[in-house]
């Protein structure tokens, strides 16, 4: 069993136009820079991207935005990501904003075979009630917005509370940045580079890991595997610090 491919471009060679891709990373940590770069070079278009913040300082996924490769983003935060904000506002991309914990849990659910779950996050807000703009038209008009979600009361541990129903997300691919991966796909992450990476890998039909170090099976302590190889289909070696 050897999941290692020679180059990042080999690992993304079958990502076709219109694919849905979960991309790990939070801020500058744990971003699969090289796989994003390979996808950019491949020229794939009309992508749906699931990600926390869709690039930072013009880097990472922002490079795909700049080349107009993305048509839809499922994320939690735009912040100061200028090109993300611009394309959302000018109607070029459709954006579905999720609470960050809901985003992580929706992909964890997708990976775990859970179809949907009830969370307290977003009850009595536009997340539960609907009305968050998803697509803008000319002049800042709102062409489409989120719809209301089901809200239901449950008693948990003796406490009655209302919860909103959120559905799982499964993607075609996941792009993952790991610190170490072995040839069977087992991976570990250093510090806050872990973030969404394990959840997103689980949610994808094909999870592609770029790792700063690729080792033989058996070199990672079985007690300390952060992402078991069963969730990983492809591994590519990149240099530590390598970003493209």
């Amino acid at each position, binding site marked *: 069993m050897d999941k290692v491919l020679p180059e990042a471009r080999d690992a993304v060679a079958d990502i076709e136009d219109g694919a849905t891709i979960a991309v790990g990373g*939070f*801020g*500058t*940590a*744990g971003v699969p820079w090289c796989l994003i770069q390979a996808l950019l070079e491949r020229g794939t278009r009309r992508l749906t991207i699931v990600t*926390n*913040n869709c690039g*930072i300082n013009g880097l990472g996924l922002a490079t795909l935005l700049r080349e107009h490769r993305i048509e839809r983003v499922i*994320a*939690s*935060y*735009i*912040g100061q990501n200028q090109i993300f*904000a611009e394309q*959302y*506002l000018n109607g070029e991309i459709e954006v579905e*904003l999720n*609470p*960050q*914990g*809901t*985003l*992580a*849990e929706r*992909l*964890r659910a997708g990976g775990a075979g859970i179809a949907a779950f009830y*969370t*307290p*996050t*977003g*009850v*009595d*807000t*536009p*997340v539960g009630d609907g*009305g*968050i*703009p998803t697509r803008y038209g000319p002049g*800042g008009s709102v062409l489409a917005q989120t719809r209301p979600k089901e809200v239901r009361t449950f008693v948990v541990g003796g406490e009655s509370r209302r919860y909103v129903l959120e559905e799982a997300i499964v993607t075609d691919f996941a792009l993952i940045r790991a*610190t170490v991966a072995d040839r069977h796909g087992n991976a570990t*992450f*250093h*510090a*806050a*580079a*872990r*973030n*969404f*990476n*394990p*959840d997103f890998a689980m949610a994808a039909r094909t999870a592609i890991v770029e790792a700063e170090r690729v080792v033989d099976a058996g070199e990672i302590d079985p007690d300390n595997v*952060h992402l078991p190889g069963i969730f990983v289909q492809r591994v590519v070696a990149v240099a530590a610090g390598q970003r493209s």
Partner: protein
Amino acid sequence: MAARAAQELQDGEYVNLGIGLPTLIPKYLSSDKHIVLHSENGVLAIGAECAPDDADPDIIDAGSAPVTVVAGASFCSSSMSFAMIRGGHLDVTVLGALQVSASGDLANWAVPGQLVRGMGGAMDLAAGARRVLVLTDHVARDGSPKLVERCTLPLTGRAVVDRIITNLGVLDVTSDGFVVVELAPGVSLEVLRTSTGAPVALTSWSLGGNPQPVG
């Protein structure tokens, strides 16, 4: 304000500090309190911010600032980090606000007509933390009250705020609405009341516990 907020945190508590003003709190924590700081990107037991030159690029907080961790730290995935938040395992979160209502509704993520920049982890924190403190200027830049009868902005969470710390004082959200706990030095109750968009009650408890002159 950050100094006052620091007093709210008790020894042994697990705390998440929102971006903005709340990140100033750690500077004012007395060293005899052991507070475990959580960051929603999967870091538990954050230490001091560190200079970019010394930084490990993989150790950042939720504001993407380079940080250190202290003894007893752990890293985890995002789903696990939010399990901590949503599951009620955080003792306190300190958040900023655009508006807080007299019934504890919090609005801090969106303004109609302006670009929605996303809620990030704020809604999870508001829904999940056992105690939600708000740290904010008492009024908006245009002078309009941030503490209001009813929020007009889209909510982050309904009936979630426990206590508000502003440049004018400290207020609790109770079943009777806002109750003053403390006035900032030199601030009169009158000033607090005229700066607040809803009635502010004065309980005998708050009088007893308040070293500042009231009225």
